[in-house]
Every structure is written in structure tokens, then in C-alpha cells.
């Protein structure tokens, strides 16, 4: 809120002009708003409809069941586990990528021989399809017998770690973080580079060490960029699916079942369209709660 009032002094001119322009802009914005509305409303309406129907694809008698699907879902202990797992996954990956991204951004802001090439290597994981990266990590790296990690721990005399059995959630977090660190790095590096060089020089002249430079000059400047990273990543992390599907199938037990995977299980392993739709509705509600709290806190920074 404060951001809006702070920038309010620029706005009067534009809002004054708005009243005169209103009619002319309507046909302009209409197509996108219309398309978005249709996109939102049609599937939403259909999802709502199916969520009160008993409809199993394998046994296709569609009949009204009222809130039966919701009751079934809310009584299911796995729903709460899945919500918790979703939060853990999103929270950990956000923390890891922001911290690692910031450190790497500071590092790549320095000039060193071949830094352009090194930067290309560092951002490469962002371009890899989630399915492919999960397959590489599962089979080539984390496989306890044939993987590189297993080889490394054996060569220093340790038992190889059976990643997906012993630390399933940590393994998934590791893979997802690997994919998103480059994104954070890219955005944060851009932000650091847009920092005034003169400002940095001046601070250095005043005798600021690298640490105080980082904490008093660079970090405050990154606030907005971090918000961007957090927001965009949250959107994608809430629906992480391929990495879980390929590596752990949500297990062992429910250890890595997040909400997206739980709905997948309902929809495509159990073919319970009614239950999956109810899950979808719950996910929409949750998404809006998250949008309301998390994004809103972050969004303050975005309104500059």
C-alpha cells in the first residue's frame, strides 16, 4: 500500500487523463480480458460441475453426489500431508535459490577470465526440460549403484546414499533448486549490474569492505529483484509435478506427494474425475490464499 501512495505524486496527471480516454481504451483491452475470462471461467465452471458429481472415467455413470467428493477428500489424511509437502517444497526451494542466486550473482558480477562463458554454463540448467533434468539426476547422478554420487562416496569409503529412499524430499528439493538457481542468478545479476557503478565506487572510497558493501549497498538494492524471483518461482513451484513423477512417484509413502501430485493421482491413476475436480477447486482456493498473502506482501515491492 505504502508504495502506491509513495508514487502517488506522479499519478494525478495520468488519472486525470484517464477519464478522457476511457471509452477509447475499452475496445483495446477487451480482447485480452475476454480471452482470459473465458479461459478462467469455462474450465472453472466445468471443474465446479464435476466436483459435485460422482464420475469415475472407468465406470462412467455421472451422478450428483453433492459435497461427497469434498468430504471424501477432506477426510483423506493424505490431503494434509500433501499441503504440508507443498509448503515445504516451495519454501525450501525459494530459500535455496534466492540465497544461492544472490551469492552467485555477486560472484558473476566480478570480472574474471572467461566470466562470460562461465555465466553461460551456470545458467544452462534453466533451459533443461523438467522431465529431462529429473531423468538425469535420477539415473546418472543419484543412482546409488551406477550414479556419480554413489561412486564419489564409495571412493572416500562411505556407503552410497540411497537418495530417493532415505532423503526423498531433500532429493526433490535439490533437483528443483538446480533448475531454478540459474533463473534467480539471471534476474539478480541483472539487478546488480544495473546498480550504479559510481555508487559502488563511492562506497569503496569511503572504505567499505566487501562485506559491508554487500549488506549495505547491494542487498537493499536487490529487494525488488528478489520479489520478482519469489513471485515467478512461487507460481511454478506450487505446481511442481514432472520431477516428482519421474523420480519418486510421490513416495515412499506420501513423503513427496504435493498437492499437484495428489490431484494427479486422483485424476489419472484412479481416474476419479469428481475427486480430482474437487481437488482442483481446493487448489484454486489455496492458490488464491497464497496469492493474497505471499504475493501481496511481495507485490508491495513490485509497485514502484
Amino acid at each position: 500500500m505504502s508504495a502506491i501512495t509513495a508514487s502517488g505524486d506522479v499519478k494525478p496527471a495520468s488519472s486525470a487523463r484517464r477519464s478522457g480516454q476511457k471509452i477509447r481504451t475499452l475496445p483495446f483491452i477487451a480482447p485480452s480480458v475476454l480471452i482470459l475470462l473465458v479461459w478462467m471461467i469455462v474450465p472453472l465452471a466445468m471443474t465446479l460441475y464435476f466436483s459435485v458429481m460422482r464420475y469415475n472415467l472407468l465406470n462412467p455413470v455421472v451422478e450428483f453426489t453433492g459435497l461427497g467428493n469434498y468430504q471424501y477428500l477432506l477426510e483423506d489424511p493424505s490431503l494434509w500431508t500433501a499441503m504440508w509437502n507443498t509448503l515445504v517444497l516451495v519454501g525450501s526451494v525459494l530459500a535455496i535459490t534466492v540465497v544461492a542466486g544472490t551469492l552467485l550473482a555477486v560472484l558473476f558480477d566480478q570480472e574474471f577470465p572467461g566470466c562470460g562463458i562461465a555465466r553461460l554454463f551456470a545458467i544452462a540448467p534453466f533451459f533443461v526440460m523438467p522431465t529431462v533434468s529429473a531423468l538425469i539426476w535420477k539415473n546418472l547422478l543419484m543412482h546409488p549403484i551406477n550414479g556419480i554420487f554413489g561412486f564419489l562416496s564409495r571412493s572416500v569409503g562411505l556407503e552410497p546414499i540411497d537418495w530417493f529412499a532415505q532423503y526423498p524430499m531433500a532429493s526433490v528439493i535439490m533437483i528443483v533448486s538446480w533448475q531454478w538457481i540459474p533463473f534467480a542468478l539471471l534476474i539478480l545479476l541483472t539487478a546488480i549490474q544495473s546498480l550504479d557503478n559510481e555508487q559502488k565506487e563511492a562506497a569503496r572510497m569511503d572504505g567499505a569492505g566487501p562485506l559491508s558493501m554487500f549488506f549495505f549497498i547491494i542487498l537493499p538494492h536487490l529487494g525488488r529483484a528478489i520479489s520478482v524471483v519469489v513471485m515467478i518461482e512461487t507460481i511454478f513451484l506450487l505446481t511442481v509435478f514432472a520431477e516428482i513423477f519421474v523420480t519418486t512417484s510421490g513416495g515412499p509413502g506420501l513423503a513427496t506427494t504435493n498437492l499437484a501430485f495428489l490431484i494427479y493421482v486422483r485424476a489419472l491413476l484412479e481416474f476419479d474425475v469428481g475427486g480430482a475436480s474437487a481437488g482442483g477447486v481446493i487448489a484454486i482456493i489455496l492458490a488464491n490464499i497464497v496469492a493474497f498473502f505471499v504475493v501481496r506482501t511481495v507485490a508491495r515491492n513490485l509497485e514502484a
Partner: protein
Amino acid sequence: MNKKTRILGLLATTVLAGTILAGTTVVQAQQTRLTVATVNNGDMIVMQKLSSRFEQANPDIKLDWVVLEENVLRQRVTTDIATKGGQYDVLTIGTYEVPIWAKQGWIKKFDNLSADYDVADVLKPVREGLSYEGTLYALPFYAESSMTYYRTDLVQKTGLTMPERPTYDQIKEIASKIHDPANQVYGICLRGKPGWGENMAFLSTMVNTFGGQWFDKDWNTKIESPEWKQAVSFYIDLLKNYGPPGASSNGFNENLAMFSNGQCGIWIDATVAAGMVFNPATSKVSDKLGFAQAPVASWPKGSNWLWSWALAVPESSKKEAAAKKFVTWATSKEYIKLVGETEGWVSAPPGTRASTYDNKQYVEAAPFAKFVEQAIETADPINTTKNPKSYVGVQFAGIPEFQAIGTQTGQTMAAALTGQMTVDQALKTAQSAAERAMRQAGYKK
């Protein structure tokens, strides 16, 4: 100004190019194009390769292949057929789906097959598994049961011998002596990856032979029972003590890779693997390979499963004649012969026809043939368990709800295997989840 027009022009051309490309794929020549959906298993990949022969013989038919991993394929195909999407003309489905889908009227009958096809030649359990109310609804591409594979060299070193039909106690004893993790040789490899077609396929046969079952004759769930507890504890004990690390993410493919690479002493799995582990091109252990029947415990039946991958034609397909022509070709004696001659007899699709097992060339090339045929002939989907049951199927229950129940149970068993739950907890969780699902589906009030 210039820049702007260039960008708009670029946008326009890309959109235009996209529409044209989209257009060309829809408009096609007069040929009948069949979309064939299949699993990426070795035998199907051979089929895809050899299908050019079919196209040469039938120039008016062109095949478009959709090859996907088993889980993805199942979800794709089920969504399509249940919503009558009509994207496929030939489907690869299994013994579990065929009767259920036939009941829904989703797939076409195969009722007037030509004499050449010799339907009586198809092994009886396989034929029955693909029928609904006495009519065939899909034709078997290959069929499998389960059996025991072992390394003759490693078993010999222990001084023990593998009986032709071992018990689970004997398996455990041999595995314990072979187990040598320091040299990356593990006593026994079993499926641990969760899924009704993965760990539960194997574990169900174990439960059967330990005297247990999924449901009794009144659809009461019987997971929380002494028989299940005994079987599951034995399974976990085996894998924990004498199995490879990472067992909970090993499915059929992973175990096949490990066994072929010489890392397993014993492996109990699908008979279809025999052709692959015995083939020197794909296996390092082809010359020191032994075969035995699937192990048993207290109850002699139900210890080996029955599955076949079959080709079916969806009701929504508008190209029935061409599709059936292809299906009969790919499941015919001639096709088996074609594979034998081009790929080597050891790779011929197994388990479907008596004539394959009467063929001297095949039996010579495949010393495991007798075991496989016997395993398939003895698998009995109806009289399987010690106590009477209500469902049809050895390693699954032939009801639509089973996929859900089997998969959930598979997850809890994997959790028990990794030590996140005790066996008692796991069985309790699985029992209550299965009861919930059966109640929701209306089997139990």
C-alpha cells in the same frame, strides 16, 4: 517505424507459417492412417521396426506410432477412450483393462477371426484373460508369467543348489550366501518401485502363496491380516538384508538393467525378461544364467502372475477394418516367425501361442521356453488364493477401483521398505485407504 513494421511482419509470418504447418498435418492423402499407441518395451520396439513390412504389404495403410512409457501410455489411452476422444486406432492394453473396457463397450470384438489366424493356438489362460463373456476383445502381442532367474556361477560358489521350484526360505538362504555388497553383487533383486503394476504385482503373488488375498468373497478388504504381514515382512527382510541399495525405486526395467549388468544373484520377475537376459547383445550374464519357477511358501497356487500385453481397437475408431488387419498381423504366427528370422529366435514374442513352443528353432534358441510355457499354463486367475475370493486376477483384482487401491497400497509398502513405517502401520494404512475406496465405489456400505 521501420522496426515496428518488421516486427509486425515477423509476427504475421510466424502465425501464418504455424497455421499452414498445422493445416498440412491435417489434410492428408487418400491413405488410411492408423494411429497406434504402444508401450516402449523391447518387443514393441521391434514391432515398430518391422511394421514397415506390413506397410509394404498393405500400401493403402500408413502407421503413425505413439510410443510412450507404460504409466504415461495407460493414462493417455484411458483418458482418450473414456471420453471417446478417438485419437487412436490401435491400443496396447493389458489383461487388467480388457474385460473392464469390454464391459463398458469401449473396444471392438474380435469374433470372426480367419482360420489362418488359428485362434485355438493361443494359450488358454491368455485367451481367457482377454475375453469378456466368452468373446475375445483384444489379441495378445506377448504374454508373461513370473519366474526365478539366478546366476549359476554365484549359486555354485555357495555350494547350494537351486531347486526347480524353490521355496521362499530356500531363496532367502541362497541370497544370503551370494550377497556381497562390497563387490556390488547383491543377493536378490525384487521390485520395490511403487505402483499396482510394479511392486504390487510381485508382492501380490507373494501374498497369494503365503495364503493371503486382496478381498474375500464378500468384498471385505483383507490387507490387515496375518498372511499379508508374514509375506510383507519376509519381502522387506529379504530386500533390506540381501537386496541392492535403492530397491524402493527399482521397477522391472531397473532390475533388468542390474541383473543384465551382473549385479544381482537372484531375480524374481516377468518371464518376458528371459529373452533379454539370455541375449548376449543386451546382457553380460547370458552364459551363466539359470531358471526356476517362481518361489512358493505355504500355499502352492498364485505364486506366479499372468499378464499379457494385447492390441485392441477402440469403439471410437473409424478405421476398424484396417486396424484389425494390423492387429491380426502383429499377433499372428507369421509375425512371430518374422521376428525369429530377422531378430533371432530368442527375441520372438513369447507366451502367446502353443505353436511357438512347438517350434524347434525357438526351443533351441531359448532354453527357458519350457519354464515360461509351464508358468503361463499354471497361472490361474480364478482359483488363485487359499480362501475363496470375489475378483478375477492373480496379481490384481479385476475391478476399476483396483488401480487406485493397488497404487496406494504400493506406496505404503514402499514406505515400509524404506523404514518410514512399520509393517503393521503400513498394512493398517493400506487397509483403511482400501476400505474407504471400496465404500466410495459402493461395494460396501
